[in-house]
């Protein structure tokens, strides 16, 4: 009996689901629960993948990284480069109906972004003297020195604008709006079920005419990469923001695939091994040099990235052509024999089982394959790794709050300008309790000076020269070892079009072909 009922229910379900009417709905898979939906106080990828569609920045960045209008329709830079004036789009309303104004922008930068957004706090706040709102439709950035990277730091991922009327006078970390966000963006928040789904619906009053085209945007939390791909193949999911490199080949004929170097988690990311310089073993330069000679980065690119990217040739990502220094890491060729010699010289002899030292390697669970391969490669030079996979919050606590680690595997996204994501890795003021800042606790007065010089010049050639000088120094000091530049692949089902995976607002223009 029960079985018969069960079967009937099951068959009815099959029929019903095939009959259901087609609305313009896109289902998006995300790997992790966003936790909350305030993109201004966090740089976490899963959060931005969802929340960026609810908000806007002053500008949007196109696929090439050029600034396009978003909340600001136009902007002018003063002749001395120290004042940038933005004209805001007229008639913009928050999702709760309140009018948006320049005061919201001023408030968000001064009270939230400059205090809680890791990259914007480290990369933009030091350059800004004040953000002013002379009238409701105008925002003026007054800068301490010219700051040419400014426009690239104002998109929704780096600087989403929050409603002042909901956040003023409260602790942004504990505001109730973090769970029921109110933005100006293309999609309105509808519901959030932890570890399950976030549902957004079309903002019918969106200030960009004709947009968005989708009626609903449903985010499903699916932790297993394999399940994500199976769900796409089975038409349960329409869009994958990140396809694991190992899965790209199997989606080739099932979906539209687009390779990018940027996304809601940041742009131009380099898989990086951070050495905790406060640990005596790793404070010794020969030990860090031995790592550089022992790790086979080409193998990492091929086996873990499936060729999706490049071996890092410089501390700065190769896509930032005017600042990168190709060949900076040439001295460290793959040479396990030399690595062994360096470790002997550093006073780490091999023990009875052949091991010289056992070190803790902290990483996100998603990077486990890098860690496994690294353990395999380092075994050849007698270094044993204890792997510690931790979720992003626990990782940030261990590495940046408690500093309880030897090695940390971090995907550092450089951004489209080194001011966005490179400075925070090396500048001595970025050491401390801010997630994904200077993990190595590296301190070098010359490097600090070079960053300050590069950040305040408007001359790209001069800036490039300062960054390259900085790269020469850090390539010698090795506070990090730069492994692989990772490219991202996004995928969507063939009957959708116009997704923009390089942007946080990836679904603003997307639609389903009829």
């Amino acid at each position, binding site marked *: 009996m029960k079985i018969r009922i069960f079967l009937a229910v099951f068959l009815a379900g*099959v029929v019903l689901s095939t009959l259901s009417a087609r609305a313009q709905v896109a289902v998006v898979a995300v790997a992790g*629960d966003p936790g909350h939906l305030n993109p201004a106080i966090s740089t976490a990828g899963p959060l931005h993948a969802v929340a960026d569609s609810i908000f806007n920045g002053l500008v949007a960045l196109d696929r090439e990284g050029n600034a396009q209008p978003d909340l600001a329709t136009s902007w002018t830079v003063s002749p001395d480069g120290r004042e940038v004036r933005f004209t805001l789009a007229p008639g913009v309303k928050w999702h709760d109906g309140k009018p948006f104004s320049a005061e919201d922008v001023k408030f968000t930068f001064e009270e939230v972004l400059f205090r809680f957004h890791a990259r914007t706090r480290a990369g933009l706040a030091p350059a800004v003297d004040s953000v002013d709102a002379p009238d409701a439709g105008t925002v003026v950035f007054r800068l301490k020195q010219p700051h040419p990277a400014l426009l690239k730091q104002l998109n929704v991922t780096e600087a989403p604008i929050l409603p002042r009327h909901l956040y003023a006078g409260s602790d942004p970390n504990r505001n109730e709006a973090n769970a029921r966000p109110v933005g100006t963006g293309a999609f309105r928040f509808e519901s959030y079920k932890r570890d399950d789904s976030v549902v957004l619906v079309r903002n019918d009053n969106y200030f960009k005419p004709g947009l968005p085209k989708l009626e609903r945007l*449903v985010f*499903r939390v*699916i932790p297993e990469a394999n399940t994500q791909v199976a769900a796409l193949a*089975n038409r*349960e999911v329409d869009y994958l923001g990140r396809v694991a490199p190992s899965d790209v080949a199997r989606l080739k004929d099932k979906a539209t695939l687009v390779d990018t170097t940027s996304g809601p988690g940041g742009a131009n990311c380099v898989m990086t091994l951070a050495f905790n310089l406060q640990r005596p073993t790793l404070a010794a330069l020969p030990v860090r040099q031995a790592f550089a000679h022992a790790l086979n980065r080409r193998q990492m690119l091929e086996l873990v990235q499936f060729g999706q990217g490049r071996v890092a040739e410089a501390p700065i990502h190769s896509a930032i052509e005017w600042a990168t220094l190709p060949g900076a890491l040439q001295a460290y060729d793959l040479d396990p024999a030399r690595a062994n010699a360096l470790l002997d010289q550093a006073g780490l002899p091999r023990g009875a089982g052949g091991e010289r030292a056992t070190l803790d390697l902290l990483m996100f669970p998603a990077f486990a394959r890098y860690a496994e391969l690294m353990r395999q490669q380092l075994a050849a030079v007698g270094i044993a790794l204890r792997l510690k996979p931790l979720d992003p919050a626990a990782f940030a606590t261990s590495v*940046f709050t*408690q500093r309880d680690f030897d090695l940390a595997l971090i995907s550092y996204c450089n951004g489209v300008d080194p001011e966005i994501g490179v400075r925070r890795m090396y500048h001595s003021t970025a050491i401390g309790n801010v997630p994904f800042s200077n993990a190595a606790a590296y301190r070098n007065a010359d490097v600090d000076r070079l960053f300050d010089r590069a950040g305040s010049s408007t001359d790209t050639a001069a800036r490039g020269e300062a960054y390259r000088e900085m790269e020469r120094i850090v390539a010698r000091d090795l506070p990090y070892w730069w492994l692989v530049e990772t490219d991202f692949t996004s995928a969507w089902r063939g009957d959708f079009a116009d997704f923009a995976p390089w942007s946080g607002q990836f679904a603003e223009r997307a639609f389903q072909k009829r």
Partner: protein
Amino acid sequence: MPVARLAWAIGTVWLAASLAFLLIHLAPGGPAIALGGDSGAPGYLEDVARLYGLDRPLPEIYLDWLARVATGDLGHSYRSGQSVLSLILERLPVTLALVAPAVVLSAIVGTLLGLVRTGRGFAASMAALHAVPGYLVGQALVLVFALGLGILPVQGLLDGRGADGGGIARLLDMARHLVLPVLALTLHNLTFVALLTRTRVMAEMERPYAVTAAAKGVAPALVRRRHALPNAMLGLVSLFGSRLGGFVAGAVTIEVLFALPGLGRLAVTSAIARDHPVVIGLVLFTTAIVVTTNLVVDLAFRRLDPRVGEAV
């Protein structure tokens, strides 16, 4: 006697609470970090210690802890700030929707199998099948029914595109999504029930009444069904109560595999996030559920069959 049973049930929850207390105090960094996490903000850990009264003598903290557990105050998740109990109650329906059909199915099919087939080969094959974990079964089912035939979904509880329709359409959609996970959870437990039924029925068949019936020429199958089964059932059902914990354990991997937002998945994501209060809450909550179920089953049977009270 029922009073004594109740006392032991409460004792079990006390044991779980004490175990959790012990583990929290053994945890690296001490109880404050275990209960409140480490935000790195100056004075934060002192605040947590004050909030939980950790600056008092240990026996006092312990009694306070037991009092909290007794009143259902399981603390707050420090990942979401939500109260642990509300977090658990929010997820409970999903796990129930997964576990309840699996319990019913494996009870019915397993009992029938164990009753019909009593050979040694059958026992061995059931024992072997029992060794196949549910998530492997789940993977195989996904491969065949979702990716191969394309008739069932591979993940989730509801179709992301639908969800507008309320009532019956929603229930049907949910049922469709639960077919594979329920089957995966069932197969593993069904073998256990089949083995247990077989053992029980065989034991009953050696009892004098069954021997007598057989001697009088009643067909063995009929003896099994008419006489042995009802008697074996009594013991079976009470054993099933103690098996509930096993179902919840099985649900952990199934919920992860099928991306279902139930208690098992909550335990895993919380453990990976080091959100200890939630995991502690889940241990205590599950213990309470298992104990309560056992108690209810026990008391119900005591009314149905007075002999139960005398047996062990």
